[in-house]
Every structure is written in C-alpha cells, then in structure tokens.
C-alpha cells in the first residue's frame, strides 16, 4: 500500500486539490456556507487576535493552525473507527500464545475482558462491549503513570509495548528510504530538466517511453528481476538484507541494501522526471522566459534562474512529502528482500494477529499519511503565498 505508486497518487491528488479549491473560490454557494461555519469563524477570531505580526504572517499562521486542527479531528475520527474495528476482531489466547494466564490477566487489567466463573467453578473470559473498551482506553491514556495504555505485543515480542517494537524496526526502513530518496530526487529532477530542454527531440521521446514503462510496471516486478539477475544468476549482490550485527553503516549492510534501494528508486525517479518535465515545459513557454532572453540572459541563465526556480513551486512540496514518508516502509519491497523494517512489522502483525501492534502500526501509518498531506499543502502556501489550500477565498 505504501509503495511509490501510491505516494505518487497521493501527490497527484493533492495537486488536484489545488485546482478544486481554486474553482471553489468562484463558487459562491460554497463560500457563503463556509462563512457561516462555526469552525471557520473560530479561526477568523484567532486571526483577528494576532495583531502584532504583519498581516501576511498572521494569515499564514492562522491557515496552518486551521489545517492542523482539521487534521487532528480527522485523525481522532479515524482512530475511533479503527479502534472499534480492531477491537471487534475475535481475540483469545490461541495456539502460539506464550502464557495464556498473563494474557488474560492483562486483558482484564486493561478493561477488555471480564472474568466469569460459572456454577461449576469453570473460569471463562468474556469480551466487554467495544464502546466501554474505548472509554477505558481513553481513561487509561490520560491517566498519568499508566505503563501500557497501548497494550502489549503477545506474538512478535512477548509483552513488549507496541511502541518499542515499532521503534526497533525503524532504522532499516529509514535507511533504505533515505538512500532511495538521495538517489531518486536529484536523478529524477535532472532527467526531467533534460527531457524538458530536449522537448520533442529523440532524447525526449526515448526517455518518455522509459519513464512510462517504469511508472507502469509494478515495483515488485523489478525487485524480482534485480534479485534474480544480481543475486542468483550472477551472484554479485546478496539477495537478503544483512543482519544488524554488522552495524547500520557498515559496508556489508550497504551492499545488502543496494537491491532494495534500487528497486524502490526506479519508479520514484520516473515519477519525479515526468512531473519535472511537465512543469518545466510549461514554464519554459511562458512570456517571462521570452523577456529574460530578450534582456540578454543566456539560455542556461534563463533556465536556471527563472524557469527552474518557478517550476520548483509544485515539486518542492512533493519532495517534502517524500521526506515525511521516509518513516513508512514499503510492504512489498521489505517482504521480497526480508528487510525487517516497519512494513515487515505491519505485515507480521497482521499475519500473527498481534492486534495491539497492528493497531499501533496502522495508526502510525495513518498519522504519517495525514502529516504528509498537511506538510505538502502548507508548503505550497509557503513556496508560493498565492496558493492557500482549502482557503475561504
């Protein structure tokens, strides 16, 4: 789910939102309704209270605050939905549980089950209704000194807290994503610029076909291809990730990460190249470029100083989004190359039905998605103050 393609889709959607809101401002009905909205009037009060700063900064801050609160509301709503759905799943101390006694003790302590002793003295455990569970959970969460509000891992790591399990899995994921980002962003931008400059020449046509291929072909296909060619047929690179004992920055670790990084990069490079090409060709044909050339700038000067900087307006937020999503691992790539990162943990928690870990990791993924969208939207406004996503007018 969190592969390159999805990221790209999210970005495309967020760029679509720009145009939605641009058209929204022309739609009188929507604006009138937004003005009477209690939330928005609350924000306009905040806005008017910020008198000391300049008008522009105030507007930006209020806008960010507004988006933050909206994001929080969305997150809480999603959390409630997920909490209820996950707590409704059948749970018992099935086979593979290390110590059912402790499991049930914890379940009772966390208000998820109650002990029932029938007339024959037989002990069974009964689920508590899910809304009461939600209430207990919230109460526990805001009680200071409560050691494990998020529950425990019962399958992956006996009685560790889900947060600990997750943070242990972060380094490989972050490392792979960072490597892939360092390769794909510069290469993608450079390719895009080259294609835009060579527009409609054979170089552009050739690269466009390649970009189209790399965007369409699923990343697991080139992951398999790379793994087969480099690890099994030629045997020059390891097929699996090296274990962590060698240290995260050792050469051995780096070598074992080449293949997963490469298979993540291809789609990402192609995405950046296509986007940059589209933006830059649009800017290159605009009138101010003609003016720049007329006033005596060389083609290189005009391209770098005027065209490229302007084309970065929509690309910069895209890069920021990429940086945020460094934390979330790709399920498929981590599965193929046995990287025990966050994506693998997510999958493992589903397969072993370790519900507390599943819930925690799912919420982690959702939070990253939300923050990513928020940062992208806000940074549009910071890069180009004319853009206000979701603004009134």
């Amino acid at each position, binding site marked *: 789910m969190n592969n390159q393609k999805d990221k790209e889709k999210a970005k495309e959607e967020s760029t679509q939102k720009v145009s939605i809101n641009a058209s929204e401002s022309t739609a009188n009905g929507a604006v009138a309704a937004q003005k009477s909205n209690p939330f928005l009037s609350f924000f306009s009060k905040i806005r008017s209270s910020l008198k000391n700063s300049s008008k522009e900064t105030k507007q930006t801050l209020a806008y960010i605050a507004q988006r933050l609160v909206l994001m929080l509301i969305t997150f809480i709503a999603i959390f409630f939905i997920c909490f209820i759905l996950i707590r409704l799943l059948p749970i018992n101390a099935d086979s593979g549980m290390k110590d059912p006694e402790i499991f049930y003790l914890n379940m009772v302590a966390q208000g998820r089950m109650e002990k029932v002793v029938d007339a024959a003295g037989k002990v069974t455990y009964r689920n508590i209704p899910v809304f009461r569970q939600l209430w207990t959970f919230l109460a526990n969460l805001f009680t200071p000194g409560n050691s494990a509000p998020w529950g425990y891992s019962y399958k992956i790591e006996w009685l560790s807290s889900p947060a600990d399990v997750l943070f242990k899995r972060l380094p490989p994921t972050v490392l792979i994503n960072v490597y892939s980002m360092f390769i794909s962003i510069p290469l993608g931008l450079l390719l895009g610029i080259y294609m835009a400059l060579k527009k409609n020449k054979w170089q552009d046509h050739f690269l466009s076909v390649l970009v189209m291929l790399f965007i*369409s072909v699923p990343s697991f296909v080139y992951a398999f291809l790379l793994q087969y060619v480099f690890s099994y047929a030629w045997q020059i690179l390891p097929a699996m990730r090296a274990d962590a004992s060698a240290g995260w920055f050792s050469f051995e670790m780096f070598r074992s990460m080449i293949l997963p990084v490469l298979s993540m990069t291809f789609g990402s490079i192609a995405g950046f190249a296509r986007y940059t090409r589209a933006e830059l060709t649009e800017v290159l044909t605009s009138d101010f470029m003609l003016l720049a050339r007329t006033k005596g700038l060389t083609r290189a000067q005009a391209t770098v100083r005027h065209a490229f900087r302007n084309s970065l307006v929509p690309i910069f937020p895209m890069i920021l989004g990429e940086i945020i999503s460094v934390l979330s691992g790709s399920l498929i790539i981590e599965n193929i190359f046995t990287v025990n990162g966050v994506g693998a943990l997510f999958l493992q928690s589903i397969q072993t039905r370790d519900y507390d870990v599943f819930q925690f990791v799912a919420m982690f993924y959702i939070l990253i998605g939300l923050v990513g969208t928020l940062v992208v939207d806000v940074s549009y406004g910071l890069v180009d103050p004319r853009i206000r996503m979701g603004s009134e007018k």
Partner: protein
Amino acid sequence: MALAKKNSLATAGISPTTPVLSKDLFVRYKDEKDLHDQAFETKPVSYLADCFKRFAKNKASIVAAVIIFLIALYAIIVPLASPRSHVDSVRYPNGYMDSNFSYVLPYNPLFKGTGFWDGTKTETKSQNDYQTMLYGDSNHSRFVKLLSTSETQVGFSTVKAYKVRVDTYAVGNKNVKLSPAQFADLTSYEKEHEIYRTPKSIMKPLVDVENYLANYETEIIADGVATSTAAGIIDFMRTYYNQNSNVYFALSAKTASGNYSQNRFSPILDSSGKPIDIYKHDGANHLIYEELVSGEYNVRVDYFDYATFRDGFEPYFIFGTNDAGQDIFLRLAKGTQFSLLLGVGISAINFIIGLIWGAMSGYYGGTADLIMERITDIISNIPSIIILSICSIQFTNNVALKAALGESGIIVLAFLVAFVYSGWVGVASTTRMQFYRFKGQEYVLASRTLGAKDGRLIFKHILPNAIGTLVTSSVLMIPGVIFSESSLSYLGIINFSTSGLSSIGSLLNEGQAAGLQYYPHVLLFPCIVISLLMISFNLFGNGLRDAFNTSLKGSED
C-alpha cells in the same frame, strides 16, 4: 485609409464636430440578392466520433487496446478450451494437478531441442547418478546432452562430476495401482497402438527387488561386511529402488576404492558394458508385467506415456507447472480472469458511487459539500490494507457467512468491501471538481432560468460535459485495482490456497514460495502478464484522456 479612420472615430463615439460623411459613400453589400445561411457541405461530426478519430490517431493507445483485448481473450478462452480444464472431476476434484510433474519447466514445441523454453535444464550429477540416469528403461530419457565433465580431488580419490542437460518432463517410470477396468483400458490402448509388450510399451516389466536384495545381502556378507552394516545398506538400497522406479537393473554398493557405501549405488555392468536386469519372471521364464493384489493391479508404467493415455493429452506445459504440478498456463488464465473481473467490477461500482456522491457534493455545495468532504477525508485516509485484513479475519471467523458464501465467496466479498470502501473517493473528487467547473457557467444559468429542475441540470447539462474526464479516470482505476489486488494477495493478506480461486497476486505468492532461485518460471509469467496489463491500461487510459480532451482538437494536425 483616411475614410476608415474617420469612420472608426464615428463609431467609437468621439463626437465629430462636423459630420463629413455623406450617405452616398456607403454601398449596400449584395443588394440585389436575398441573404441566406449556406447549407453545410460536410457531414456534422458528433462528439463521440470526433473523440474516436482522435483516439485512432494515437498508435500507442491502439496497440495497448489490442494487447488488453488479447490478454482478455486469453483469460476467457483458455479456461474454456484447454483440455486441462476439462479433466475427470472425480480424479481431480481441485482441477488438473499431477505432483509427479511438479515444477517441470516451460515447454514450447517450437523451441524443441534448442535448450531454451524446451523443458530442459542443466544439472550437475555425480558419476553414479549419471550412469543410473543413462541406463533407465523408460521410454523418455531424462538425459539430453552432456555439456562437460570435471574432476575434483577429494582426499585420495578423484570425484567425477557431469554437467548435463536433462529433460524435466522425463519423470521416468512409476509404480501405480490400477483398477481392473483401468487395467483393461490400458491394455487395449497399448494393443491399439501396437506397443503391447514391446520395448516402447507403457507398462514395463516388474522388477524383482526383494529377491535381488536377499541375494545381494548374502553376497556382501560373504565379502566380509558385518551383518548389521549389511542390513543397513540393504535398507537404503530398498528405499532407492522404491524411489527410482526406472532402475530395473542390479545395483552395487561397492565404491571404486573397494569399500561399501551406505547411500551411493552404481549399476553392475556385464562384460558388454550393459547393466544386468533383475526383472521378475514367471515359471516359463516370461516377463511379468502386472500383479493382482487385493483387487488392484500393481504395474510399473512409463509415467509420461501413462499420463498421456490417462488424461487424453500429452503432459507438456507451455508455462511449466507449480509445486502441485498444476498447469501455470491455465491457472494464469484463470487468475487473470479473476483479476480483470475484479478490476472492472470494482471500478464500475466505484464509478457509480463516486458519481452520485461527487455530483451531490459538487452540485449542492455549501454545508453539504463541507460535511461530505470531511467524510471522504476520513475514509480516504484509512488504507485499504487495514480494511482488507480486518475483513479477512472477521469473515473467515464468521461461520454463518462462510457457510452461506463458501471460501471463494468470502475472498470476493473481502476484496469488494476493502476496495469499494475507499475506491470511489477518487471518482467523487473528480466529479465534484467537474461540477464546480460547469455549474457556474452561463448555459446552466440559462437553463435554470428557463425552469429546469436540479435533476435535469445534473443529468442533461452538467454530466455530459464531464463524462469524458470521468470515463478516463475510471478506466485508469482498473489497473489501480488490479495492482492493489495483486500486491495484497501477493503479501498473503488474503489466503487463496483453500478456495480453488486464483488471481495474479496469488500466483505471484506461489512463485515466491517456490523460490526465485530455483524455479523462476513460476514467477516469470504472472510478472509478465501484470506488467503488460499495467503498461497497456496506462497507455490506453492516456489515449482516452487525450481523445476526450476537445481542446486538443486540431492542435496536432
């Protein structure tokens, strides 16, 4: 020139102080004729015809459409026409599979003998294995070609290794049990093909293993091997005979250095260099081909020929087989069918839901829009993998649902819920955007002024203008659904194994379980099909988008 200037001054309303224009300067144009609109000389081009014309110009999209059509044809025709999907359902309750042909490599008759795509592979054999392979009495020799030999020094002895090309379809002879009716059929089949009791027959003479082993045991004990060691060697040799049913000859456990090996056996050769057979003979010294034990015939058959007789087709597989010996060509067709149907079906449902939702939120706007947007915000931020895994666990634990829908029904339902639940959000936002674009335009206002109701405005005036964009986005949704489905079933979040269904993703999962290192063909063909589908759908969708984009009209001519 001067006249024109004065004229423009006059029309511009700059009051001329002296009127200099006299009436006779103006001549009436075509005064003598009536003015009429001219009739069109060309035929009017409808919107769709125009779109189609633009689409037909795009070569890549045409090729993509043809590829999609061919893949769909493959997915529909192969399960209908392949003899492998019409096998005896009593013998194969879960469809054709034969574990004796597990992991045979792809075989294409066009490439026979080339070493590529002809079902052969390269293996390295020890000397014993190599000799045993050469002397089998099967109709199909596993040995194809000797590529090279190598010698390595191990301790004091040299070990010879043979690099050979072997035919994976030559599975050799197998011991099978036949009912009297089946035995009679097989006998008449052999007689019909004039191979009955000939060297090319399907039924091979039985091998008298026990008799030989008893003799051999006394022989090696006489040679000075301890009784317990001899019993061990004989046990291993018995297992070896049972596992390799094409070994019809006497084996020796003696190595080149004169010791007895526990697990390495080589054929005993006679003076002419041929192995000595140990077939069973009856009292008249005739070979015995069958034994009737408790109502069933024990026979030793050449398995490839026997399978051809049994199933009515030669067990050659153009894409090879998987672990269970199922035909990948057929399974991939079924899987593609499932994936395509799922993709098209879910896209259609999402299209309808998204259209209604987006039209309402875009047309009415205001508070309705605000609330609906928040709902889609929440829905679209829950990844479908979470919903799918919750559905999958919940449904498989629900006994009543399982009884009502069956295993395969549950899988389809889980996919439906997971993909429909958030899939329509994309269509809804596109529709909403289109409605915002068109609802403020003058022609809508004009229609509204004339008294058109909401329904008429939505369906007659706004929707037809937006339909091109919407159709394109829903066509582009199909590869998205196929991709998500295949990645999620590849990851094993939905378990296909017991349901009898297969999808491209479940085949990928199988391929990874088989091991990319050893059996890449299991993974190769699903990968090719899904890549082709993704590329073609994207090209096709882009072609559609350009075709429906009227602003491109004439830009490329």
